[in-house]
């Protein structure tokens, strides 16, 4: 199994555990365990299977099963994106395997990038979202749970399958989509009316960084991407779960705690987001320094949205507070000393 994917799997497992431990007393632990366990198993399978075709079939199966979970959105709406993803990935895969002109490989790269974006739910393939939908049946598992491992697998496969020329096109598309997702996600987090949607867009913005990281064809790029993915799975996702919990006071508030959460979400030092940003700037500077400038300016767009999300957390009490404290501690630790994580992923 890909070491990077293995690390992400462990993080995903930790996220499931977090959901189990810190879920409100009223929530069904059994349901959480079944849904989380199934998702985790499928994610593990995606990372573990030897052939990419098998991974695609698992994604398809996962998409069908996830769409079948009772939820607010119609079955068709939930199934479309995974089906499109698999179809496009399959066509891309086919174009890689057949003989033909070089442009076919570029089209294959398009298939792989678009398929990955569609599976995870990134711009322009954003999964339709219902603010009041339960987490399990919402698009969130794709963007924050399965997505990280899936992206790592697709990118690693692409590196093997694509030629140098097509690989460059693949990287360029990743960076392009990354910048678009960064800008859209961070601005929408700030300006959208609905707080649930703002949370969802904030994942999109982080994914923008991930795509840019994967697109930087240097050692620092994947490192940065891994750290941002860590931030998504071990930071943003748990905080989102805490925010989703029903609580007495729903009023937004700006206190020290909320600012701390905002700092974590915005990738301020000393949280893991800052280390990831440093690596991204490093990679971008090596590749093409104006890109670093664009990224640096884009990174400032995180603040207003993060402040909004931080305020939306209110003041957690009891178990929720403990959960947030744990998330903060973990993100600070990895932010200050990310080397063990990177070494575990062989990066």
């Amino acid at each position, binding site marked *: 199994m890909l070491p990077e994917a293995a690390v992400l799997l462990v993080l995903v497992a930790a996220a499931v555990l977090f959901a189990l431990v810190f879920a409100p007393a009223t929530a069904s632990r059994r349901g959480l365990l079944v849904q989380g366990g199934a998702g985790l198993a499928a994610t593990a399978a995606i990372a573990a299977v030897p052939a990419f075709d098998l991974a695609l079939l698992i994604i398809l199966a996962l998409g069908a099963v996830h769409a079948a979970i009772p939820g607010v959105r119609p079955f068709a709406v939930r199934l479309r994106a995974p089906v499109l993803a698999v179809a496009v990935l399959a066509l891309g895969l086919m174009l890689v395997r057949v003989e033909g002109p070089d442009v076919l490989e570029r089209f294959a790269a398009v298939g792989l990038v678009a398929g990955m974006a569609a599976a995870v739910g990134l711009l*322009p393939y954003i999964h339709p979202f219902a603010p009041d939908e339960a987490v399990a049946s919402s698009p969130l598992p794709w963007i924050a749970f399965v997505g990280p491992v899936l992206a790592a697998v697709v990118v690693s496969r692409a590196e093997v399958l694509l030629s140098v020329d097509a690989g460059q096109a693949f990287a360029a598309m990743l960076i392009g989509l990354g910048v678009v997702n960064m800008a859209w996600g961070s601005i929408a987090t700030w300006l959208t009316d609905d707080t649930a949607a703002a949370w969802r867009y904030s994942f999109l913005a982080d994914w923008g960084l991930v795509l840019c990281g994967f697109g930087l064809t240097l050692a620092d790029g994947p*490192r940065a991407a891994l750290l941002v993915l860590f931030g998504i799975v071990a930071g943003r996702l748990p905080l989102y779960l805490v925010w989703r919990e029903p609580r007495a006071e729903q009023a937004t508030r700006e*206190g020290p705690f909320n600012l701390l959460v905002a700092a974590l979400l915005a990738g301020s030092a000393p949280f893991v987001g800052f280390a990831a*940003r440093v690596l991204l700037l490093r990679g971008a500077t090596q590749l093409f320094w104006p890109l670093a400038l664009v990224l640096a300016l884009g990174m400032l767009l995180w603040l207003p949205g993060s402040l909004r999300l931080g305020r939306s957390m209110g003041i957690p009490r009891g178990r929720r507070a403990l959960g947030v404290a744990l998330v903060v501690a973990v993100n600070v630790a990895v932010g200050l000393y990310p080397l063990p994580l990177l070494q575990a992923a062989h990066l």
Partner: protein
Amino acid sequence: MPSAAVLLPVALPLFAAAVIAVFGFAGVSLGRVAGGAGAWSSVLALLGVWIPVRSSIELTLGPLGYGSSFDLRVDAVTFAFGLMIAAPAALLLTLQPRTWQELSLSLLGLASAIAAVEAGSVVLTAIAGGTAATVAIVLLETEDPRAPRPGWATLLAGWLALSWVGVILQVGGGTAVYSAVPVATVTAPLFAVLAVAALLASNLFPWRTWPADLWSRRSLRAAGITVAILYPLGFYLLVRAYELGDGRYPDPLFNAGLAILGVVAAFAAAARAQAAGTRREFLGEVLPFFGGLGLTSIAIGTGLGLVAGLVNLATAAAMVACLALLPDRAGLASILSIAAAVGLPPGIAFGSRVIGVEATFEAGDLLGLIGLAGVAAWATLMVGGARAIGLPGGRGHPERETFASVSMGIALLTLLAGPAIAAIQVGFANPVASEVMQAPAAPLGGGLTSVVTVTSVLPAVSLLAPLLVLGILVYAVAGTSAIRTQARPALIKLPAGGLWHRAREGLRALTVPEQYRSILNIRELETAATGGQPLLWLAALAALAFAVTR
């Protein structure tokens, strides 16, 4: 001295913060004694590490994961800035009552700021400085969420810019370690980013920024700590920049530009100070004024200027503690604080400013005009100071966090320290100049009794000491009863502030005309992008396919 000792100035306050937090969670507030102990331990550690050896001590503990090693060092620059940061913070933490949360956060911020100046590489400085900024924001919010605080975006932008500088150095020269960066890597564009980072870190601009705004908070507990730990960091970067550039900035225009910016900032602060409505408002502009002149002196690019700037900043650090402990009521403490702030002879502020002005003239190339402007700015502050003595107090600084006698003591100390400016230069500032600038520019002669510049000598002890005695005698027989507290009109009205405000309001009021709003409707755009329209998806696919054929 074991190299691990360089950890102490950072580790001790961190440990104290942890202990205070643990007890706090257990319901026991250890109070200011623990806070003071944590902060003073950092000061003592700095003294203990630097004074016995007086040469650079470095600790490298291997890579951290973002291209930088865990590299801490204590050298003359670290020592000087560490003291500027830790000493006032320690004093405030010892005296002012705080909740355990505020204590822990303050110590955390202090440790981060010390780590920023101890960091051996630019990237580490950026991370530690960014941490200090984050902690300071949270600290200010803990004290009073509605009171003014620094713009987070500005601070983050500064530290992000510095981290970019760090990675550019790593990419271009293979390292971002201050002492190892190849000079050729420090190009003009890179230095421009570094300068912007420094200016953003300390908000050194001509308009009213957070170092002034924070003093308009009712309570000055968090404000004092924030200014103490954050304000010196921007100057620190500009001083380290000399080390990166082998004793100079990559282009003399940077020296001139930054010096001009500094003097303009100082003049603007002084102009706002002379128009202040309360004494507190005036005192709020004192530190930006110190900072402006400090920036000018440091940026001039000569050893003399750097030394003057450092002494000026050290005085500013003392003033931070002085002003944060000063009650809003009238009295001798206020008068002495204002006298110290305006640089009444023969105080240390007076001495450092005079040397700074002399440095500009001796630097040549019309830089003397900057010195001239500096003196004009100083004169404006004098007016403000004289006027402020009789102004109403201000926002009612809570009595329990004010210590008039200590504040007065600090002010008095800065006034009495004038004759010792040569000694301070030799023990405190000269080593920094020697560290970051190459001889012969750096070390200045004159010894402990006088400051020798290129064209003149300031006989610190022999001239200023008798003047001090004379001053003490005449002030001793003079009373303060004749001073009348009254609302006093501004000498110069400030149209600029109004213009700036109007411009900002105008910008805020800008809207897209009704008939054009349908062209770009954000809501509709959001709906279209998130509606999961198959056609849009296929179009995106086609667009990507088209893109890769170009």
